[in-house]
C-alpha cells in the first residue's frame, strides 16, 4: 500500500518528528526527511510479538557494543513500533550507503566475523524474548523429503507431457544425480538427529536472511546488518548455512575459502563439534536446486515463460557444482 504524506505525517508525530519530505525507495520502505534527521520508515507484516522480539534484541545488542545493528526508534509513548489499522510500522535512522558491500575486499570474512560477534553476545543475554520458534531437525528433514518428492514429480510430469516444459525436461534428465546427493543428505541428517537427541543445541539470535542486500557500508566504512524482522533464536548453524549456500557457489565451493570464512566466524564464536556436524549436514543437501524447483512449481503455468531461462541456468550451474558442494560439506566437519 502506498503511504501518502498525510499518513507519514501522523506516524512521525508519534516520534515527535515533523515531515519535510518522503520518498518510496522500494515497496513498503520510505526514506523520510524530518526536522530531526533522515529516517527509514517501513511497513511490515510481522506479528507484534515478533516485532517486540526484534526490537528488544536490537536494543540489547546495540547496548552491548554491537554497532552494526540499527535499533528501532521508540515513540514518545515507549513503543518500538506503531500498530495502526493499516499495518505495522517501524522507524530507524537512515543509513546512507557509500559503497556496495561486494566491492569491499574480503567482505565475506567481515560479515561472518560480525555475525559471530552477534551470536556470541546473544548467548550472554539474561533475558530471552520470545519470537519465531527455532526450526527443528525433524522439520528440516520433512522439508527436504518434500523437495525431493516435488522434483521427482516435476521429472515424471515432464515425461508424460512430452516436453512442452523445457525446465521439466532438464530436471528429468538429471533427477538421478540430484537424488543421489539429496538422499545422502537426508540419511546424514537422520543420523545426526539421533546423535544430537540428548544434547540440546545452543540457541543464538539468528538473522535468518544473511544476504548482502541486507548489509550496508555507511559513512567512514561503517558496516551495518539490516532487516532483522525474521530473526529467531536458533542454532548458529542456521545463519552459517544460509550464507554458505548463497556465496560458496560463487567461488566454486572452494574448501580453502570456506575454511577461511568459517575461521573468521569462529574468531568470535567457536563452533562445537555437534554444530560442525550439523553444518555439514545442512550443506550436503542441494538446497539451491530444491529452491529453483520450488519456485518453478509455485509459479502458474502461464507465468513461467519469463523466468524459465533463468531457472534453467540456475539449475545447470548448481548441478555442475554438486560434487564440489558435497566435498565442501564433508571437509567443513573438520576444524
Amino acid at each position, binding site marked *: 500500500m502506498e503511504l501518502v504524506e*498525510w499518513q507519514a505525517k*501522523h506516524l512521525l*508525530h*508519534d516520534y*515527535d518528528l515533523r515531515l519535510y519530505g518522503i520518498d518510496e525507495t522500494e515497496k513498503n520502505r520510505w526514506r523520510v526527511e524530518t526536522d530531526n534527521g533522515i529516517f527509514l520508515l517501513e511497513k511490515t507484516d510481522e506479528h507484534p510479538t515478533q516485532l517486540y522480539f526484534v526490537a528488544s534484541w536490537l536494543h540489547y545488542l546495540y547496548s552491548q557494543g554491537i554497532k552494526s545493528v540499527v535499533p528501532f526508534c521508540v515513540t*514518545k*509513548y*515507549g513503543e518500538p513500533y*506503531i*500498530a*495502526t*489499522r493499516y499495518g505495522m510500522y517501524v522507524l530507524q535512522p537512515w543509513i546512507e550507503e557509500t559503497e556496495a558491500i561486494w566491492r569491499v575486499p574480503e567482505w565475506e570474512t567481515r560479515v561472518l566475523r560480525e555475525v559471530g560477534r552477534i551470536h556470541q553476545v546473544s548467548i550472554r543475554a539474561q533475558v530471552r524474548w520470545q519470537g519465531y520458534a527455532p526450526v527443528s531437525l525433524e522439520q528440516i528433514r520433512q522439508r527436504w523429503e518434500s523437495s525431493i518428492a516435488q522434483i521427482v514429480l516435476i521429472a515424471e510430469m515432464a515425461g508424460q507431457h512430452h516436453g512442452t516444459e523445457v525446465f521439466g525436461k532438464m530436471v528429468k534428465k538429471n533427477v538421478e544425480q540430484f537424488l543421489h546427493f539429496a538422499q545422502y543428505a537426508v540419511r546424514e541428517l537422520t543420523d545426526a538427529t539421533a546423535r544430537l537427541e540428548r544434547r540440546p543445541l545452543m540457541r543464538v539470535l539468528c538473522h535468518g536472511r544473511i544476504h548482502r542486500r541486507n548489509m550496508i557500508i555507511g559513512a567512514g566504512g561503517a558496516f551495518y546488518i539490516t532487516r532483522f524482522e525474521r530473526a529467531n533464536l536458533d542454532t548458529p548453524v542456521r545463519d552459517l548455512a544460509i550464507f554458505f549456500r548463497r556465496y560458496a557457489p560463487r567461488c566454486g565451493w572452494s574448501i580453502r575459502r570456506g575454511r577461511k570464512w568459517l575461521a573468521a566466524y569462529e574468531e568470535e564464536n567457536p563452533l562445537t563439534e555437534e554444530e560442525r556436524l550439523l553444518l555439514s549436514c545442512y550443506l550436503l543437501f542441494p538446497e539451491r536446486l530444491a529452491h529453483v524447483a520450488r519456485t518453478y512449481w509455485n509459479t502458474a503455468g502461464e507465468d513461467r515463460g519469463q523466468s524459465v531461462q533463468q531457472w534453467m541456468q540456475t539449475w545447470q550451474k548448481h548441478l555442475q557444482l554438486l560434487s564440489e558442494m558435497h566435498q565442501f560439506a564433508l571437509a567443513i566437519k573438520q576444524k
Partner: protein
Amino acid sequence: MNLQEERLRNHLDGYPFTIREVRHEENGWYALTDRGKKRIIYCQDENLIRWSHSWREYLVNQGFRHVERYLVNGQGEHWISDLAGSYALSDYWEQDYDWSKRNELQMKGYQTFGELLAHIHLCFDNVEEVYRGRYRKKGTLNETRLKSSYRYLHAIIKEIESRQSDNWLLYNLSRVAERVRKAEALYEASGGENDRTPLSFAHMPLSSLVYWEPCWYITGLHNPVLVPRHEDTVTLLEQIYEISDTEGVNQFLSAYASVRRIPVPEKNYLLALLCYPLPVLSGLEGLPQLSEERERIIAGFHLQGQREKILRCVTEMRVLYEEDSG
C-alpha cells in the same frame, strides 16, 4: 522560580528532551521543550491518572492512535507520583470548536465520537474495581434527588394554586411531575442505586474531538469528574442536537451501536437521565418569585423539549440495545 515550578522541573528532568521553560498559563501548566510545547497534567489522585491512562491506551490498542496520551520518561513510566500527587506530560491539541460548524465534517465527527465513546465505555466493561476516589460523584440521578424533586414540585404547585395565576405553568408542572415519576421508574429498573454502575465522564465537550487533516484526535479530558455512565452520552447528544437536530443524534447513536450494545440496566439509566426534567427544575431553582425570570423558566421547558426529542431517537434506535426490551 516558585515551589510549584521547581517541583515540576525536578520531575520533568526524567523525560528524554530538554526543558527550556515551565510556565503557567490560563489553561494550566506547560513545558516548553526542544520537542515542542507539552501539557503538564497534575492530579492529586494517582488512581484517576491510572483510570485516564487506561482508556487512552485501550483506544490505541483498538487501532485508534489519535488520542492525547501520556509520554514516557527515561524509566518508561507514563507518570510520576510524589506525596503531593501525580504528574504526567502529554502532546496536546487545542480544543477544536470549528469542525462542528463545518457542514462537510459534522456527520463524520458525530460518527467518530459515537465510536470513540462506545470504545471508552467498552474499556471499562470488564473492569472489576470501580474508581472510588475524590473525583467520583453521585451523578444527576439518585433516590434522594428524585424524592426531593417531588417535594419541590409539590411546594411550587401549592404556591401557584394559592396565587391563582400562572395557570400555564401549573399545567406544565403537572407534566413535569409525570416525567419525574417516569424517570424514577426507569432509575429503579436500572439498579442505579446499587453503586456498581461503571463510571464515565460527567461532561464531555464536543470540542474534545479535534480535526487535523484528515485525522480525528481526542484531546483533553483530564482530571474529569466521574459519575455513573451515560451522563457523557447525554451531554454529547444535547450538544449535537443543538447543531444538527435529530439527524446528528442518529448518526452518533448508530456509530455507538456499531461498536457496543447497551445492556438493559444501562439503557434504563440513559432513558431516566433524558426523561428527568433537569433543565426545568434547574430553571425553577432558587427563584424567590416565580413571576420573575419567566424567560428562564421557558428556556428550561424548551431545553427539556429538546431532550424529549433526543429521548425519542434513543428509544427508537433498537440496534443500540442488547435486548429489545420495548
